[in-house]
């Protein structure tokens, strides 16, 4: 019986790790063919941002204690809640730095998800659509789609990968693959706590690397015949080596990883702090990286969410995130843009803060924590053409229900799909595009309403920008 290759490939979680050049060199054939694209109903992307930094608070941020504050039985006495402006109350204990910077930030409070499971929620946050095990093997991460879209804009001097990840491997679903797209659009996922950029540490070290790499290239020419006729994965690995060498050979790369003690202290020596510091450096370098996805793990406080005695609690996580996000905005806001007169890097960088869902409002639960809550949660935006200081959407007095969506679609709540439509829009990418030559023959829509678990609009959140 004839079997299509895609029939053999695994589904579910394991598949998320198989990329175009995974086990079977499966989609290699596919990836070498130019994508068959069609613009299915044109969208009008704004093109207001050159860079996007997405900070994912993995594990789920409690919305009612943070940026949609509700006074309830779970509110801690030491929160020190202050009115920042009209409709914005913020705990100064949790967010001392951000309390000073909220004029730069816009909040969407009317997000809704169907997901309540971390793995699925975090997959959703990376893929821009809910997990469908039947299709998962071919679905790329949004970052990879962006890398593909922006590839034509890469200049000769651009060596850095378009899509850089920070601690993606700590996310519940890990770093998603390129799916049916070519592996060269894959993320370079950096873990700053272990290893970082692997860059040569000195000019001498660089010289040694150059000499060795030259030998490798010469040797490879004569070694290649032994690989002929065996498997395409050999060739693709050489491609990765060439990209890797170009990155390592560019002195801007180790420079991006040089972080002084003072800077590290200021941003915080943790996943999100160092990640935001790296993001700042990568944006400042403008050496090819355009999309950065940082994961700040360990927000899942089902128990002891506000117990100071615990090694992991919302106080600690909020403070870490607070310093990182505030300093990133400040620094980018101070650096003048070399491209646009009178603008700063913050004007050119869309920062999005996403989380997979919210946490149960009201009193704390039986183990002094908050559980998952998907019916109302939030996301944050700064820079990149967004109008700052807005609040889009409104929840009821307890934070349990959305009462106003705050955008033009009335009762339709805002979903992760819309967040990504906004990101595509800011980058100037037509988010209503679809690619039709997928292995399954099912069109890959950049924003897929029909793939959603419930009704979703295929539009950006225009209210962020106008």
């Amino acid at each position, binding site marked *: 019986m004839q079997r299509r290759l895609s029939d053999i490939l695994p589904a579910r979680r394991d598949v998320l*790790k198989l990329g175009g050049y995974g086990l079977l060199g499966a989609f290699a054939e596919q990836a070498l063919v130019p994508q068959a694209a069609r613009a299915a109903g044109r969208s009008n992307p704004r093109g207001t941002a050159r860079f996007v930094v997405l900070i994912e608070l993995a594990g789920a941020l409690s919305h009612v204690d943070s940026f949609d504050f509700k006074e309830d039985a779970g509110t801690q006495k030491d929160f020190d809640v202050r009115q920042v402006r009209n409709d914005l109350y913020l705990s100064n204990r949790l967010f001392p730095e951000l309390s000073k910077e909220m004029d730069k930030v816009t909040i969407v409070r009317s997000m809704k998800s169907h997901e309540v499971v971390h793995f699925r929620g975090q997959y959703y946050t990376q893929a821009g659509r809910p997990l469908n095990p039947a299709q998962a093997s071919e679905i790329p991460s949004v970052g990879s789609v962006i890398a593909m879209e922006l590839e034509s804009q890469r200049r000769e001097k651009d060596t850095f990968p378009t899509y850089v990840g920070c601690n993606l491997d700590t996310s519940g679903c890990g770093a998603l693959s390129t799916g049916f797209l070519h592996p060269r659009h894959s993320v*370079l996922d950096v873990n700053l706590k*272990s290893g970082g950029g692997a860059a040569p540490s000195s000019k001498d070290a660089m010289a040694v690397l150059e000499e*060795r790499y030259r*030998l490798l290239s010469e040797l490879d020419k*004569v070694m290649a015949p032994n690989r002929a*006729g065996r498997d395409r*994965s050999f060739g693709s690995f050489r491609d990765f080596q060439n990209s890797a060498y170009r990155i390592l050979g560019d002195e801007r790369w180790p420079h991006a990883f040089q972080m002084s003690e003072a800077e590290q202290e200021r941003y915080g020596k943790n996943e999100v702090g160092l990640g935001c510091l790296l993001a700042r450096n990568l944006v400042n370098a403008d050496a090819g990286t355009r999309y950065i996805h940082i994961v700040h793990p360990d927000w899942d406080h089902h128990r002891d969410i506000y117990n100071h005695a615990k090694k992991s609690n919302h106080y600690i996580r909020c403070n870490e995130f607070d310093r990182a996000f505030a300093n990133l905005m400040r620094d980018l806001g101070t650096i003048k843009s070399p491209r646009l007169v009178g603008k700063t890097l913050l004007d050119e960088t869309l920062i999005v803060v996403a989380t997979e869902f919210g946490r149960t409002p009201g009193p704390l639960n039986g183990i002094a924590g908050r559980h998952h809550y998907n019916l109302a949660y939030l996301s944050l935006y700064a820079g990149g053409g967004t109008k700052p200081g807005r609040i889009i959407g409104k929840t009821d007095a307890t934070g349990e229900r959305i009462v106003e969506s705050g955008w033009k679609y009335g009762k339709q709540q805002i979903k992760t799909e819309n967040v990504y439509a906004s990101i595509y829009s800011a980058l100037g990418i037509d988010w209503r595009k679809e690619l039709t030559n997928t292995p399954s023959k099912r069109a890959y829509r950049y924003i897929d309403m029909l793939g959603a678990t419930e009704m979703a609009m295929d539009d950006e959140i225009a209210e962020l920008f106008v």
Partner: protein
Amino acid sequence: MIEILFLLLAQTPEFEKVHKPLFTPPPQKSKEAASLTTAYTPARPGGKPVKRVNFIDTHIFGRMAKDRVPHAPLSTDEEFARRAFLDATGRIPSPEDIQQFLASKDPQKRAKLIDTLLSSQAYIDKWTYYFEDLFRAGGRMGSGLNLFHFWLREWLKLDRPVDEVVTDLLTGAGKSSFSVPGSLYYQRDFVKAKDDPDAPDAHDLVNQPDTVDEFTVTYSKVFLGLNLACISCHDGKHHLEKVNLFLTSKKRDEFWGQAAFYGKTRQIMNWENGYQANTEYTVDDTGPEYDPKADSIVRVPRRGGDASPRFILNGERPKEGENYRDALARILTTHPQFRRAFTNRIWAEFMGFGIVEPVDDFDLLKPDQVTNPQLLDALAEDFRTHNHSFKHILRTIMNSAAYQLSSRFDGEWKDTYTSYYARKYVRMLSAPEVHDAIALATGKPGKFTSGQESVGMVMQMSEPKKAGADVQGFMKTFGQSNRDDMPKKVPPSALQAMLLMQSKVVTERLDLTSLTAEIPDNAQLIDQLFLRSIARHPSKEEQTVATKALATNRQKGAENLLWALINSPEFLFNY
């Protein structure tokens, strides 16, 4: 052929009902498919026919002959030697190993090499490591980890029947960390209820039903190749139609029926001197039955249903007075799905992918998920009739001509040939294999400890996490499991390439002062470096390039050459 298939299927009425094929394939016309002799198989034009060795070849080459699928030639001795070493022992061969093998004129040399490899210490190292990844033998086993490590090594050394080992893993009871290694497999899966030290019953510290649910999902994937995760929260109907037909027909309370074999099992966290001895438990079977209305921390609320223990594949129940877990072990290890899932998993390790993929997600109502059902059933039956010997599966697979085919396919490859295993499928070395290959090629073992011992290879460690930040970061990039989650494969990436070029794991091992002194002749030195790293002699052209590299500074040149060889795709891949 079909009669044998049905005979195997008719184990129980329920199993037969489930396994009834959705259609009956037409009777096989070709008698050749059943023969074990050198039948003609359509290799590429001019290619030598391949001699069939065992039943695996009957099914692989028979199917190819029937469907007129061409196949690759047999691997060369160099290809075979390196591959066999890696697959059986996780290590690349030494120059002496290769030269000895290449020089031998013994017509049985491949079979003899296989036997040697399967009797080696390195075989035990590699497969202990493999099962520790699979059983997630990590930090959550606490102080029982070394005991578990030792126990795994012992059963591999003795080639204990796998059904007995699985029985131990499913029925272990006692104080987990110090006395009963098998119990550690269950013990590591605890879901804690609360941290309250004043809890009246220490039993409450673990949420038993949630723990049991987690564990049931785990062992069903590992030993039955069934992914019961979805139905642990809800019925299959209206949810799984596009995902798994068999599980679509299953209800949540049937999952509970499976979970209920652990219904009476308790994990009681040990307390010593007023402190919780975290990760030390006593496991016993004196709890109440599985409660289908119990509170859940990690799952959709349980609203009641039939949670009497019954095996999900055939409804079989514990005998009168039989301990539930003994019943589970008995039913599971005698069920054909256990044998099929296990042999399929091992087949995937050697042949690139399973006869059923994914190996932990069979859809028992989709016969076409099984690309070669006769082969799978034959493997399962062979496993049973050879006392569930693990070593026997390996020996059988490795000796087959199918395993020994080359990856080089000189004709036009069609993706439709894939499921026929018409060639060897190239795979990247696993994370510990990469590390250990670098250590071996450079002659510089690591300085690790495993328990009380000093060891040089990562694959000898009971806890690879203890290997130091550089090694850990390196291995994680190449896909090393954290032993908290199930192992996953990672695709190749630029970061891997970067680390192979720049990581201290490589760069601090390249001092060739002694080797260059020992071998004054350039040609011999180059030959030695090629053999050490990629297990073959250099070609003339490669010799030329390499000699040039040594011209200005002999030692630096040799070190650069070794670096380049380690960074060449041939080093990184098992082909």
